[in-house]
């Protein structure tokens, strides 16, 4: 896990060593082998009606991506990292955010109007900043930071979601469709141009692993689709799983993934706030410790699923019950580690701080919390990992939506392609969630580099 947080070293100007270049060719070879097996061997006769062949498209897309990356890796010294593309990205998404906001403003959704106009202002400002970046040096520096692109992208996403939820399918006027497509293209171009060198390096280093993975998938494909060596109910062919994505794209991504994401954010957000607050109180103040600590000690270790019966009674809406169940586990883990982090702050730090004129409250915010931050983050990390488990439990509380619920539902219908489709989204989702967390940690706790084993 720690490994994943490591930032790649800045690229030197010479090209990659020959061994790495050779490695970066392996994934392409693996794709070719898998593709030949897929095309040359016909599907097993029991699997011809309907005759799913989506695996070919997947391999095709992979081939395109890896061809670009491999080419970059082979001729790395000739590829320039494009920082202008970031500007392009910012400009386009900023403009799109503004346009989208204006559009929603026009529709005049009474319920969201205030929010939309505010967003239009933010989008407009982002756009102005990005536009200014073509002229002024300082603005250019700011706009070139990828953070801006991320912010404007999130904003844009928000518009689409609000639009979708408020108006349903009719809300998807051609304007929004067009804007979305343009935005996604700009995003892809920008991302590819900015990241292509880093990605190519990563590919070259992991070439053997990636090739092995692709080969494995190719073999699974041959086993399940071509020779039907495994029971097809539990081990559907890869093409059938991909077929689920094709058929249920909107439901899986716009409903389930979104619902899980929002549920998780609510639960983790509330748990985080409550956990840090409790932990700080327990760790800092004797009196709060006296009253709160027993509750933390007694209630905390109760496994999440035990709360389900109670949560249903306590909350009238299943959604609130689900949020509670997730928030509870997060609260406990974070409060425990925050409290111990604060209790373990060296006394001498307080002493130095006090002789420099700090009050007790200042000691809390300037000494105790910064010093406890690594511990708080550890708690947060543990908490998010276990919150994925809590998510699945929570979604069984009658919230007929979400990835966890979808997987369970598909399982009960003995529709295993759906189960796998859900599982893969879940895995990707958790991965992204945790990666973002590591990035945040790297930023906030960079002072720890060299103090602990990073």
């Amino acid at each position, binding site marked *: 896990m720690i490994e994943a947080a490591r930032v790649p070293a800045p690229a030197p100007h010479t090209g990659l060593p020959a061994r790495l270049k050779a490695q970066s060719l392996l994934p392409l070879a693996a794709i070719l082998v898998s593709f030949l097996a897929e095309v040359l061997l016909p599907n097993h006769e029991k699997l011809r009606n309907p005759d799913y062949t989506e695996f070919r498209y997947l391999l095709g897309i992979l081939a395109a991506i890896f061809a670009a990356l491999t080419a970059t890796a082979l001729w790395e010294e000739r590829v320039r990292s494009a920082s202008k593309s970031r500007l392009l990205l910012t400009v386009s998404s900023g403009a799109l955010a503004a346009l989208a906001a204006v559009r929603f403003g026009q529709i005049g959704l009474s319920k969201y109007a205030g929010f939309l106009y505010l967003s239009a202002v933010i989008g407009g400002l982002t756009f102005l900043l990005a536009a200014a970046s073509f002229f002024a040096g300082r603005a250019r520096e700011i706009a070139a930071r990828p953070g801006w692109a991320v912010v404007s992208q999130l904003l844009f996403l928000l518009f689409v979601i609000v639009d979708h939820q408020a108006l349903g399918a009719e809300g998807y006027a051609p304007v929004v469709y067009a804007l979305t497509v343009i935005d996604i293209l700009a995003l892809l171009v920008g991302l590819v141009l900015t990241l292509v060198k880093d990605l190519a390096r990563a590919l070259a280093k992991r070439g053997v692993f990636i090739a092995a993975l692709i080969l494995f998938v190719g073999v699974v494909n041959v086993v399940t689709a071509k020779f039907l060596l495994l029971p097809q109910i539990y081990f559907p062919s890869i093409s059938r799983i991909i077929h689920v994505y094709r058929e249920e794209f909107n439901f899986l991504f716009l409903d389930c993934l979104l619902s899980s994401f929002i549920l998780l954010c609510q639960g983790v957000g509330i748990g985080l706030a409550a956990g840090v607050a409790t932990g700080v109180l327990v760790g800092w103040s004797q009196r709060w410790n006296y009253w709160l600590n027993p509750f933390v000690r007694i209630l905390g270790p109760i496994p999440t699923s035990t709360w389900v019966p109670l949560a249903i009674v306590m909350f009238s809406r299943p959604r609130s019950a689900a949020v509670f169940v997730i928030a509870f586990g997060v609260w406990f883990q974070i409060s425990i580690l925050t409290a111990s982090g604060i209790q373990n702050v*060296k006394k001498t730090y307080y002493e130095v701080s006090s*002789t*420099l*004129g700090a009050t007790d409250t200042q000691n809390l915010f300037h000494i105790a919390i910064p010093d406890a931050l690594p511990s708080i983050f550890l708690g947060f990390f543990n908490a998010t990992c276990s919150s994925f488990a809590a998510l699945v439990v929570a979604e069984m509380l009658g919230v007929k939506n979400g990835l966890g619920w979808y997987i369970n539902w598909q399982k009960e219908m003995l529709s295993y392609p759906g189960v796998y489709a859900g599982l893969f989204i879940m895995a990707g989702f958790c991965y992204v969630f945790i990666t973002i967390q590591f990035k945040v940690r790297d930023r906030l706790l960079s*002072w720890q580099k060299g*103090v602990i084993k990073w």
Partner: protein
Amino acid sequence: MVSATGAIIADSVSKTFIQPDGGEVTALSGMDIRIEPGEFVCLIGPSGCGKSTFLRLVAGLIQPSSGELYLDGRRVTGTGADRGLVSQDPTLFPWLNVYNNVAYGLKIRKVFNERRADVQAYIDLVGLTGFERSYPHQLSGGMAQRVSLARALVNEPKILLLDEPLGALDAFTRMNMQDEILRVWTERGATMLMVTHDVDEAIYLADRVFVMTPRPAKIERVIPIEIGRNPNHGRSRDDPDFLLMRAKILQILNFTGHKHALEYNL
């Protein structure tokens, strides 16, 4: 040079520590001290006699077991930004870089904006220009000690309590820092109370040297250093009076007990 405030008076101050096993350690017993405002006093005494304890008492970090401690006529009840302490080991905040460590006191007291320039000035003064963005774990012991010194100096307290602030420095840097400390003292007129194990350093810097007895400690002897200072730096180290004073102090230290004589860094 002499400022109106910054007087320290200790009236038979004692400090007894209770150890976890119930045993008692008497670090100080009946310390009587009178330090004038703006005076430079060096404390010398055997290791473990209670010098750091006395500084911590003056800083307000601990309370005397008996006796009274006054600052400008007021009893010491707690810490305050009017007394800066450079403790024996440089306790830098590991999550702040050198610049922010030094700026910490100013930020806490909300005067950072007006006094921003001083932060850099004091970093330059302790010779750490270029290390502003380094984190404490990237510094050597002596560098950390100098940051800790700058952090206390920039706060411009009325009273500076220095606990072997130059202990980890090489001879050359040490002499430089002694001159810088003298300069800050002359310019600002703070009261200085400095613990040192180095007799030469004490004579070079101090108006008066207080020699302490072994634990339980009190003041064994107060030695005024009446050798003239040069205008830009301290006393000449090869002045005959200097050497005489050195011999005298060493002799007094020897009187405090043979078994302790070995514990000085002479």
